[in-house]
Each structure stands twice: as structure tokens, then as C-alpha cells.
């Protein structure tokens, strides 16, 4: 998953912070449960589970990030 994030365009990289959780660890398992995820890989944006069992296409990922960014920055 981290690989697909690394190749995102620079303007997207500039507006996101990425955290990859290692499911082998207790910390990773705890985060997985907090997100109420069921399968792997799972992708959450702003603490909300968005994709499960799949890595989204780059266009889809970019569109979702842009939409959330715009919603958060409305009127700014």
C-alpha cells in the first residue's frame, strides 16, 4: 500500500500525511480494531475506513483525497 502512496503526484503528497500500520504488531492490531476493519489491506482517510481488501486505483485515491481536502477547506 505504501508504494501506491509513494507514487502519488507531489501536489497530493503535499496535502497528506501517511501512516502505515504493521499488522504484526500490537499497535497495528489495535489501530485495525479502532477503525473497525475486517480485512487486509485496508485504507483509511481521516480516520475513516474507505477501502478494504483492495488497493484503490491511483485516480480513485487521488479523487477521494482531493474531495476530502476541498470539503475540509471550504471557505478558507
Amino acid at each position, binding site marked *: 500500500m505504501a508504494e501506491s502512496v509513494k507514487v502519488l503526484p507531489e501536489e497530493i503528497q503535499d496535502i497528506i500525511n501517511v501512516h502505515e500500520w*504493521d*499488522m*504484526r*504488531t*500490537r499497535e497495528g*492490531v*489495535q489501530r*485495525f*480494531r479502532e477503525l473497525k*476493519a*475486517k*480485512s*487486509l*489491506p485496508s485504507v483509511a482517510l481521516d480516520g475513516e475506513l474507505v477501502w478494504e*481488501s483492495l488497493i484503490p486505483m491511483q485516480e480513485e485515491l487521488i479523487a477521494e483525497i482531493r474531495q476530502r481536502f476541498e470539503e475540509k477547506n471550504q471557505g478558507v
Partner: protein
Amino acid sequence: MTDKKKSQRFVFQTRGICPPEIHFQLRQGLLEDIRFVGGGCTGNAQLVARLLKGRPLEEVLQYLDGIDCRNGTSCPHQLNLALRAAEDGRLAPADSFRIYYDPQPRHRIGLIAGLEGDSQALETLLEKMADAALDAIYCLGNLTGKSLQNKQLVRLIRKQEIPAILGETDWQFARGKEAEDLPLLDQNVRDWLIRFPHVVSFGMETKKGMAFFGDYIQKLPGYSDFEPFALEMNMVCGLTNFMQEQAVFPALEAMIPQFEADIILFSQINRWGHWHVAGKDFISLGPAAEPEGLSWGLLEADSGEIRFERMVIDL
């Protein structure tokens, strides 16, 4: 690189003195805990441990030189050797939990769990299980409990040389930190408990198995997510809540290719269960004594297949 700020636990194998092991912890040059395990003058050893607790290593070392008791050595002398070995890196910190590796490949294993001090139940089970052509018996914790027979039970396990795995109550007893409502236990029994393993590793034909009690192991000082079998324990305890949350089994399946073990046994939830997920067998062992009788588990390997059955003995 080791993190000196964290407490590090050491186990030193002694020579020439009564206790075969000395356990101690060091944190930032201070001696945190000392335990002479498995023999010797228990009262004196406890006093020494109290006097030295919290003292800087360099201060402690000056008291330990030149004391002879037998065989040209003594408990202080062996502690001296142990502390110096830990200080200069010849003695590595101990793993957070102890694993017993059963050297014999097995085909039919009898499993007993949750005895909670019921030595009579163990005696009866062993008698009945003698007819089952087993090539091994393992006892999973809790071995001890709110019973006045804890001592007899530990003695019987030792006498029969049964590989026994510490449960959470057993571990508390071993460290002298049991709940107030539990009965007193002799120091020598505690010493035997502390030398029991937390995990048993075994082989059945081409399959590898591991048995543990439950999630207290994850809280042991120094526990690492990358120790042997830690992944299996993290998945059973943390991810699936002891296989009770089947909704997360897809995630479990994704992690299973990284497992070291094919058979995973646990006993914390006091309930019988068998789940076969992505080629691995997960088995929860219920308590030995239940209203309908005494129970044990039969684990069998046959041509690469694992079979598990709960056996109930009517009383």
C-alpha cells in the same frame, strides 16, 4: 542496540550452589529485582534480594566478593559472576517469555487445561488418559487457583514430568504477586512455577504446534512483537479476541502465511473450540473440571491431517 532505559531481565545458570538459577532485572545501572530460584536458604535469599533492590550495580558488586559457602563458591559469588556478565554483555537479556521445545515428534497428544489447583482432577485424568495410547500430555494454565491443593498439583506435574504452561494466575504466584483472595503458597512451589515455560513448541508429523495461555504474555516486561510465536499470539489475542470475532477472519487469513506454527492452542477463555482457518488449526481448551465431568482434549495427527476431539469422562 539495547535500550538501557528499559528494564532488562536476566537469567543466570549457577554452578556449585543450591539454587540452579538466579533471576534479576537491571534498569539504568540499578538492580531492580533478584531471585535465587529452585533451592537454597529461601529466607536468607529473600532478605538479600530486599537489601540489594534498587541499589546501583557498582555498590552491590563490592559486597559480593570473597564469600565462600561450598564448592569454592556461594550464592553471593554466583550473583557477582551473574551481574558482571550482564554488565559486560557476556550474559544476554532473557526473552520476555520462556519456551519449552518438545524434542520428540508427536502423533497423539493429550491436552489438559484450567486445573486451577484441582490435583484430584489431574490424578483422575491421568489415570483415565493412560488407556488412550498418548505419546505426550501437556498441561495448560491456569494450573493453580483458589485451591488448597496447589502444592500437590505442582508436585504431581513435576513427578509425572508433564510439560506445563504457565497461566496468568500461575505467573502471579510465581512472582509472589497473586491476588489477595488466593491461598498462600510455599516459596519452593513458587520457585518451581517460575521455571515452567510460558509457551510449548511441539511437532506433529510435518506440522509445528505451539501452546500458550493467553494475553498476559503480551504484557510481560520486554515482550517483543517479533519474538518466536508473537505473531500467532498477537493474532489470537488482539485481532480475533481468541477466535470469538469471526468478522476479522479475512484479516487473519491474510496474516497466516507469516505464521511459524500450524497448530495454535490456548486456554484463557475457558471454552472449548476448534477453528480451521487457511490451513491452520486454532484450538481453545476449556477447563478440566466441568459440571458434566472431567474433560481433556485429544490432538491427533494422521497423514498430514490434524484432528481434535474433546473427551469427557463421566464421574
